[in-house]
């Protein structure tokens, strides 16, 4: 693949207290690629994504976004990033439009372009009719959409989504998956999930984490190679051995 690398992480390690939650995770993401981060609950997916987004500083390792080292030039790097954490960061007392404009301003969208960015983000996330609603009155699914809209409003080169389809109904899940695929055309997307067919449907590559370590990294086809993705996942996580100890 010849498209440029937009996000690269080298040997990320992070401790919570004495416990090593993420150890030596390295990954690369190219423009136009959708990468799925798979793993059991507590495998270190969210911690990894938070380090990639600059919300957590890794205890060791390096994150580069659009060639900017996040530790050296956090502001330049973060300007190329859009991040949806597990819990969408929404100000419940704000209206959808006001909130999205605030998010756009935080990410240095030029005032002249605000209206265009707002309209496009709302249209992509199916929020066109909700601009005047208070966020606290939105349903869970729409709050999730507002969270995604917040992450893409500045049209970043890298979009990081932590479990974007959790708590949505089937139609909304389909819409969000379409959106992620659409985003994958113009930018790079990395998303975490524990739903296997989500990865199979929308991702080009997958990384499987187990107890903070990468136990598989490769194309979806490789996962499919032996049998289907689900049994590959189960086989891989069982093989890495520590499962008995965990349960």
């Amino acid at each position: 693949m010849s498209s440029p690398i937009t996000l690269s992480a080298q040997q990320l390690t992070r401790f919570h207290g004495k416990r090593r939650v993420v150890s030596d995770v390295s990954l690369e993401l190219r423009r136009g690629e959708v990468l799925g981060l798979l793993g059991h609950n507590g495998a270190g997916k969210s911690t990894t994504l938070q380090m990639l987004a600059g919300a957590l500083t890794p205890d060791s390792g390096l994150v580069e976004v659009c060639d900017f080292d996040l530790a050296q030039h956090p502001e330049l790097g973060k300007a190329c990033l859009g991040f949806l954490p597990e819990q969408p960061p929404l100000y419940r007392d704000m209206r959808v439009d006001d909130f999205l404009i605030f998010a756009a301003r935080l990410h240095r969208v030029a005032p002249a372009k605000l209206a265009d960015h707002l309209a496009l983000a709302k249209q992509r996330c199916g929020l066109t009719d909700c601009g005047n609603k208070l966020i606290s009155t939105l349903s869970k699914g729409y709050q999730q959409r507002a969270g995604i809209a917040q992450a893409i409003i500045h049209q970043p080169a890298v979009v990081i989504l932590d479990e974007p389809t959790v708590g949505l109904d089937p139609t909304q899940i389909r819409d969000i998956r379409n959106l992620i695929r659409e985003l994958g055309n113009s930018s790079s997307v990395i998303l975490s999930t524990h739903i296997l067919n989500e990865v199979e449907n929308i991702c080009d590559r997958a990384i499987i984490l187990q107890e903070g370590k990468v136990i598989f990294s490769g194309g979806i086809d490789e996962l499919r190679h032996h049998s289907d993705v689900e049994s590959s996942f189960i086989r891989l996580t069982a093989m890495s051995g520590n499962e008995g100890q965990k349960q």
Partner: protein
Amino acid sequence: MIRTLALKEFRSLFAAPSTWWMLALLQFILAWFFLARIDDYLQVQAQLAQMGNAPGATIAIASPLSGVLALMLMMLIPLFTMRLIAEERRNQTWILLTTAPISATAIVLGKFAGLLAMLTLIVAACTLMSATLALGTHLDGGLILSNLLGVWLLAASYAALGLYFSALTRQPIVAAFGALAVSFGLWMLDMGSDRVRALSPNAHFQNLSVGLVSSADISYFALFIAVFLALTIRLIRHERGGR
């Protein structure tokens, strides 16, 4: 960027019904005290008229009024500052700011400026109340202005202190009580010996309240505000690296 954050804070302060309740209650108490002081003043006015250098309406009414405002603000400001960072952490919206391309300095200054804008409105409303005395008597404009400056600086100091406590914890109530306890402690220092008194914001406010504008008092407030803002910025900058 600081302006964006300040505007957002200012708006969301006024979006909360509790803010309006607090402001209404504050105005009510101030108006009550103001009228009571006028009443007292009118009762002793006949005796004052016979004195050689009698205190005027400004020092008898406007100065105590700003003293009451200063005390009320000491108790109210922690309730506003607790929202600024601690509540954002609890509601998990803080991550929006930490992953945005803005510096810790901009976050802290923006939040501080947003709250200060609202506090300025409160101080201005109180000053307007004092200014209505001009309808009936001759006012000492200088004294009114030095009172305005004093309350404003005091409010800004409490806001900076509260902001620091807000950054220390993710429990808004803990942030509010912490800030209140320290403000109260500093206020109590005012009753100590001269050297201890110098540490109390209230003591410096009292100089301004009687019309004594000295660079020592102004520098004290500037230093107080700068120290707590710097501590807050430092805390936020280092928290992501720390445990």
